[in-house]
């Protein structure tokens, strides 16, 4: 039988899909050993969200020509529509190709040497004249771990300033502080594997179907195969994700703290809590004084029960407009299922009470003992591919040091100073400015030189207009390392450095479930684009030379490549609760990701943390007396987790007569973040070319608005004109606008009010008015 090339392609594609679901397809002999469309396949990880799907890219003649899911990775070969369109992002026409310097308002090409000399001079001059706190770095949850580690070491250990933060502050900070305040250490204890074991899913503030489609697929599969599995979806929008929900809890935006407290109320009043677990593994705390300094105090179970007294389902319904029957049903399902898994993202995190909301979800798990066993876990989904591994874990944020350490903690500083070999006292003890504050300081001129890498704050910051103005100031110096130019940030820069993209450099990503994965380099970057790590190391040496500290730089930044950095990173994790000494580069190249802790080379990785019974060997190390569960990150609380008394509090900017609608922003399935990549893919752009505003049909009728009408949205900070999409997705009183579009900057309207604990802004709720344009 002769097989045509087209048939070969079809069979090969079908086999790849069949193998992803464990289906054996009969294979014509002629197709055996066929290797379609590529000279070689290179193992890597998807560039987009924090799901961290394993991917192979097919390379022919030095060009990425195909992509397929890694069937041996957790995603079992599945990709979403964005993942499958990855290759075109490498070949977009607007790739940044050369260093560019802004002269008289126009960008001109300069050499790398000129660019590095200028950048070094600007930073060094600023440090000499105004001190180390006059310079700053703003990084990214998309940068490779090695890049973030080097910049953290340069700023905190080398220069002695904590003026370093990253865009995970805008998306993950509340989740991170939530985990730390409830369990003592950051990062989820569970894994995607829990989805296969859960009998109840509590999905709150997450449109998984569009934002994490491949994870949602597993939830869907679990539901389809097990009729008794219950899915509770708590969201003011009736999103695609709600299609498979057994219970959709719709509520007034910003009132979910009352709802979750009311669920706890039902669980306690109906005696559905796990007394043994609560007694053995929890303590209770409340905020005594918001400070500064912040003071918290321990309370008793009785005080907690008293606190919950007022959160009756009736009271929560009054506040939230969520029917009390739904609250009671959700509480019972949550507590009574064999295993309950909570999943959430920005609906909880991007709030002025984001940490509290996270704590309250953790409370439900701790009250019911729905934790630390298969299927029972509170699991925060991540927005960026390396927010966890590269920023939260390496400590890139302004209050952190690597692997669970804090700049404000004397012992932690001393440990890292010793590890880095810098003098005692080098690391500054006061946390530095966070994302929004870095740009506030840049606006005021307190920060004179700022380096932004691998992120797009000129589009993604809330209350955008004043920060854009600051970035454009002639009195300060802004360097932007970018893959594309112009972006809404690079257009404001004084100096643009062209960056190699995913697949053009090697390094490590760490995704939502503590899985670290190696990304192999597949192709060369275009023209003069360079990996950020190379540029960062060169800058570190140049800057220290300019500051008269050549020898120190040689010692601190003695890295020839990303593997050298990775080896130091492994050493830095040794002995901590993150310990991944066993993840050698050689092992990572072969593995389809490994979940930390993995302290030795023969350790398989840890699917579930804080439970000796299910494989966390660090329980015995940190809490030898524990028979199974131990929240060993919470040493100060005798390895017990905290159930917090967190009262309901609404958004910073509630609706009122003048601004009667709540605006929320978010993603669409086709696009990702500020669209610098996905909007370069013609197919994705055609599918979703422009921003729009979703309006509930009842609201639209009252306002006389039809789909496709032009409408003007106005907040206290700005206005935007968009096409209306009248659709039964947002509840009445709520409008939704996707955040991806550079020509329609919705963040001109959002508020930069932020959570007092996590400093994460409240992108998810602000007040607007709507009128026909």
């Amino acid at each position, binding site marked *: 039988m002769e097989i045509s090339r*087209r048939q070969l*392609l*079809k069979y*090969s*594609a*079908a086999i*790849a*899909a*069949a193998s*992803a*679901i*464990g*289906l054996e*397809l009969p294979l014509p002999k002629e197709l055996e050993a066929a290797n*379609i*469309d590529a000279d070689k396949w290179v193992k890597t990880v998807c560039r987009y969200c924090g799901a961290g799907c394993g991917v192979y890219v097919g390379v022919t003649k030095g*060009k990425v*020509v*195909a*992509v*397929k*899911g890694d069937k041996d990775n957790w995603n079992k*070969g*599945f*990709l*979403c*529509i964005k993942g*499958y*369109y990855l*290759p075109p992002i490498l070949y977009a026409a607007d790739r940044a190709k050369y260093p560019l310097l802004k002269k008289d308002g126009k960008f001109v090409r300069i050499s790398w040497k000129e660019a590095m000399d200028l950048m070094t001079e600007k930073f060094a001059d600023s440090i000499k004249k105004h001190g180390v706190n006059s310079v700053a770095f703003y990084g990214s949850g998309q940068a490779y771990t090695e890049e973030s580690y080097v910049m953290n070491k340069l700023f905190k250990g080398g220069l002695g300033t904590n003026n370093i933060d990253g865009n995970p502050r805008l998306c993950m900070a509340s989740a991170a502080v939530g985990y730390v305040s409830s369990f003592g250490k950051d990062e989820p204890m569970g894994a995607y594997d829990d989805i296969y074991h859960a009998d109840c899913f509590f999905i709150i503030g997450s449109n998984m*179907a569009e934002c994490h*489609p*491949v994870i*949602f*697929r597993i939830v*869907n*599969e679990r539901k*389809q*195969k097990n*009729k008794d599995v219950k899915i509770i979806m708590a969201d003011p929008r009736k999103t695609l994700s709600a*299609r*498979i929900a057994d219970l959709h809890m719709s509520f007034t935006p910003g009132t979910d703290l009352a709802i979750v407290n009311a669920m706890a109320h039902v669980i306690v009043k109906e005696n559905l809590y796990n007394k043994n677990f609560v007694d053995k593994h929890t303590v209770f705390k409340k905020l005594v004084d918001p400070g500064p300094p912040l003071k918290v105090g321990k309370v008793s179970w009785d005080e907690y029960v008293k606190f919950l007294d007022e959160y009756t389902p009736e009271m929560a319904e009054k506040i939230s407009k969520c029917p009390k029957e739904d609250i009671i049903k959700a509480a019972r399902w949550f507590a009574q299922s064999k295993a309950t898994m909570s999943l959430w993202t920005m609906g909880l995190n991007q709030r002025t009470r984001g940490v509290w909301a996270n704590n309250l979800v953790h409370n439900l798990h701790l009250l019911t003992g729905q934790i630390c066993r298969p299927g029972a876990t509170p699991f925060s989904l991540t927005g960026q591919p390396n927010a966890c591994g590269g920023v939260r874990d390496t400590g890139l944020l302004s209050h952190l040091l690597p692997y669970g350490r804090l700049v404000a903690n004397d012992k932690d500083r001393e440990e890292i100073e010793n590890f880095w070999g810098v003098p005692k006292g080098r690391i500054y003890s006061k946390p530095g400015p966070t994302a929004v504050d870095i740009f506030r300081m840049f606006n005021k001129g307190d920060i004179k030189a700022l380096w932004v890498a691998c992120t797009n704050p000129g589009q993604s910051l809330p209350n955008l207009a004043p920060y854009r103005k600051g970035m454009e100031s002639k009195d300060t110096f802004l360097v932007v390392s970018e893959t594309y130019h112009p972006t809404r940030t690079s257009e404001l820069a004084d100096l643009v450095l062209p960056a190699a993209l995913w697949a053009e450099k090697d390094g490590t990503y760490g995704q939502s479930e503590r899985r670290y994965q190696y990304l192999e380099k597949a192709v060369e970057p275009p023209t003069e684009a360079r990996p950020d790590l190379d540029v960062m190391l060169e800058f570190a040496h140049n800057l220290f030379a300019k500051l008269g500290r050549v020898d120190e730089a040689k010692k601190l930044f003695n890295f020839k490549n990303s593997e050298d950095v990775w080896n130091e990173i492994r050493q830095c994790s040794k002995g901590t609760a993150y310990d991944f000494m066993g993840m050698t580069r050689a092992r990572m190249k072969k593995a389809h990701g490994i979940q930390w802790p993995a302290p030795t080379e023969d350790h398989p990785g840890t699917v579930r943390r804080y439970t000796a019974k299910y494989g966390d060997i660090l329980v015995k190390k940190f809490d030898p007396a524990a028979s199974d569960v131990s929240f060993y990150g919470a040493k100060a609380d005798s390895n017990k987790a905290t159930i917090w008394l967190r009262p309901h509090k609404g958004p910073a900017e509630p609706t009122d007569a003048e601004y009667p609608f709540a605006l929320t922003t978010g993603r669409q399935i086709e696009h990702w973040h500020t669209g610098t990549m996905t909007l370069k893919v*013609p*197919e994705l752009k*055609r*599918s979703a070319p422009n921003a729009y505003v979703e309006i509930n049909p009842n609201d639209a009728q009252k306002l006389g608005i039809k789909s496709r009408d032009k409408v003007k949205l106005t907040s206290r900070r700005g206005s935007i004109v968009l096409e209306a999409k009248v659709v039964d997705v947002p509840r009445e009183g709520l409008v939704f606008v996707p955040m991806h579009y550079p020509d329609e900057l919705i963040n001109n309207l959002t508020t930069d009010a932020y959570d007092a604990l996590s400093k994460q802004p409240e992108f998810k709720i602000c007040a607007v008015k709507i009128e026909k344009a």
Partner: protein
Amino acid sequence: MPVVSVIVDIENNSGEAVLHSLAVIGNVSVFGVKDNQIVAVIEGKDMKAVENTIKELYAIKNVLGAYPILACGYE
């Protein structure tokens, strides 16, 4: 001419109806079914055509999702 394989997730007991619907879409070939998942391959004259077909899949009653697995020949 691009070729894209997809897994089509469907609701319980809807296999026959969905397969029937797929059969009338000209550029879709079904290669196998396992549980509530169908392995299909889409061919299109260009990626726009493939993209339109994926949208068609989503519009079929009882289809919960269509997930591309491997795309070939779309340089």
